[in-house]
């Protein structure tokens, strides 16, 4: 297919349809509303379903219900809306339903602002809702990558029977970029007959499926959690995704950065190179599972003095990097979180400052 120029939010909606997801529930919120506005027009054209819920709380459970029936379903929202969905996300993870969530992040906490931010890193990666659960979290750095991740998210959600979160900053939703939709549409929906509640008509055996999250028997609940844990371990073994930049030479620092911020970092790295300062970047494409090994390997290079987390928040990824580098180098942070995106110049300056202090 030829390239088309599309706004990120609209491309995300289109990608979901092409991934075979014809069910969409959502609630308006800036900077994400264009997904719903696009799909309000587009879903009827392809025989799909869109319903605007009365709140994100309700949307969360609409998703749960639809997914429990074994149907592909997804939603898009932005930070405060994801907070309201977090209760349902915990239930959906507990019941192992493959729902795809897209968070086009804005500044927080509270109402915060409507400009780009990455302040929901911890919410997505560490929890958000209650209980021991993990989301598979993907962070696109371009409209093209957002489209590809949406396509893959449905496959991964079904592979693991686990909710997947696509964590894009506001710019990913609002920016227009050329995008090429994958030729091959996502895999056929997986066989859900073993768990989905599809009604009497389609039931294959006398076995009744039950979608539930309540386990009053402590041993049973413990087993359930161990089973979930195994699943998360498998994700850690099989689904880590990242890309690297300028890792060949003798770099002095490793930047870890994702989403829009990582694109600024690339330019900053090029600028520093011109001044003779070598810095590399590991860009996590999955935030959970985290590219722990890649980051540790990168800082093991003799020339490397530090790791710097560069993100549009107050340093939420720092502890994951610390865990990865296990003390080999110090871990610093640079970023902004009012909605402004640090410029390449500011970023390069911050890196230089840290390096100078090291020497």
């Amino acid at each position: 297919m030829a390239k088309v120029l599309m706004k990120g939010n609209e491309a995300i909606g289109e990608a979901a349809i092409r991934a075979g997801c014809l069910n969409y529930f959502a609630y308006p919120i800036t900077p994400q509303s264009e997904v719903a506005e696009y799909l309000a027009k587009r879903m009827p054209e392809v025989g799909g379903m869109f319903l605007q819920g009365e709140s994100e709380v309700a949307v969360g459970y609409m998703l749960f219900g639809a997914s429990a029936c074994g149907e592909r379903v997804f939603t898009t929202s932005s930070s405060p809306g994801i907070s309201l969905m977090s209760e349902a996300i915990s239930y959906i993870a507990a019941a192992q339903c493959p729902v795809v969530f897209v968070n086009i992040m804005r500044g927080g906490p509270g109402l915060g602002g409507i400009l780009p931010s990455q302040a929901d890193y911890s919410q997505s990666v560490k929890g958000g809702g209650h209980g021991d659960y993990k989301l598979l979290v993907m962070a696109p750095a371009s409209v093209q990558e957002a489209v590809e991740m949406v396509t893959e998210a449905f496959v991964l959600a079904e592979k693991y029977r686990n909710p997947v979160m696509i964590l894009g900053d506001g710019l990913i939703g609002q920016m227009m970029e050329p995008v090429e939709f994958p030729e091959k549409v996502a895999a056929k929906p997986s066989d859900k007959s073993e768990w989905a509640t599809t009604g009497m008509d389609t039931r294959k055996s006398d076995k009744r499926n039950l979608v539930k999250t309540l386990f009053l028997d402590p041993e049973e609940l413990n087993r359930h959690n161990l089973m979930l844990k195994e699943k998360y371990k498998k994700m850690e073994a099989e689904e880590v995704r990242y890309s690297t930049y300028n890792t060949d030479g003798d770099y002095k620092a490793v930047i870890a950065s994702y989403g829009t911020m990582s694109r600024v970092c690339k330019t900053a790295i090029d600028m520093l190179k011109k001044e003779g300062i070598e810095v590399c970047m590991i860009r996590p494409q999955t935030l959970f599972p985290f590219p722990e090994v890649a980051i540790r390997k990168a800082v093991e290079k003799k020339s490397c003095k530090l790791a710097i987390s560069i993100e549009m928040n107050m340093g939420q990824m720092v502890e994951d990097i610390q865990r990865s580098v296990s003390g080999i180098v110090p871990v610093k942070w640079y970023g902004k979180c009012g909605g402004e995106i640090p410029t390449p110049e500011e970023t390069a300056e911050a890196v230089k400052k840290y390096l100078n202090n090291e020497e």
Partner: protein
Amino acid sequence: MGKTFLKPNSLSDNHTHYCPGCKEAAHGRAPAMATGIKRVRPDLNVFTYQGDGDLASIGMSEIIHSANRGEKFTTIFVNNAVYGMTGGQMAPTTMPNQKTTTSPFGRDVKDVGMPIKMANLLAALQTPGYIERTTVLKPKYIVKAKKAIKKAFIYQMEKKCFSFVEVVSTCPTNWGMTPQDSIKWAEDTLLPYYELGVFKDTPKMEEKNAK
């Protein structure tokens, strides 16, 4: 030339798009927050200022329960039949066949039901004391709306009841109309459905009965 209008003393020069001096609750939760304020500081005059998306959609639960407990604050409910701030999406108050960005083919009542009449709905509860629907489409309506809002605050100051004043208004930007056309559309379309008037005035009735 003399001044015809003066800014009320209650308005400060604070630069904010919310009313100055207010607190700002999460989307839909103002009545719960107002409850918290009023319960710990009954001496304060407390009001919530909420849109139709806010109050009739995400905040439906909070407004019903606050009204039903008879919280002694005042709710001003600005109904413009659309989500304005977020760019014109469908609200629970959007009219049948009305086009919005999330109902591009017009509100399909077979799919999402008829618009919610909040004043009528709250009036079905026994506790809330004063409920009136007003509008600000023309000066003749504005005079009435002002009286209603004043009454609501007087009831609050007299610690009488929960008051709810719905204000039917326009949203030219998101309706895609000129301000003039939007006033006409609101009069022709909104007012026949959202009928103006007092739905409940328990303090007044009680006063009458006492006489």
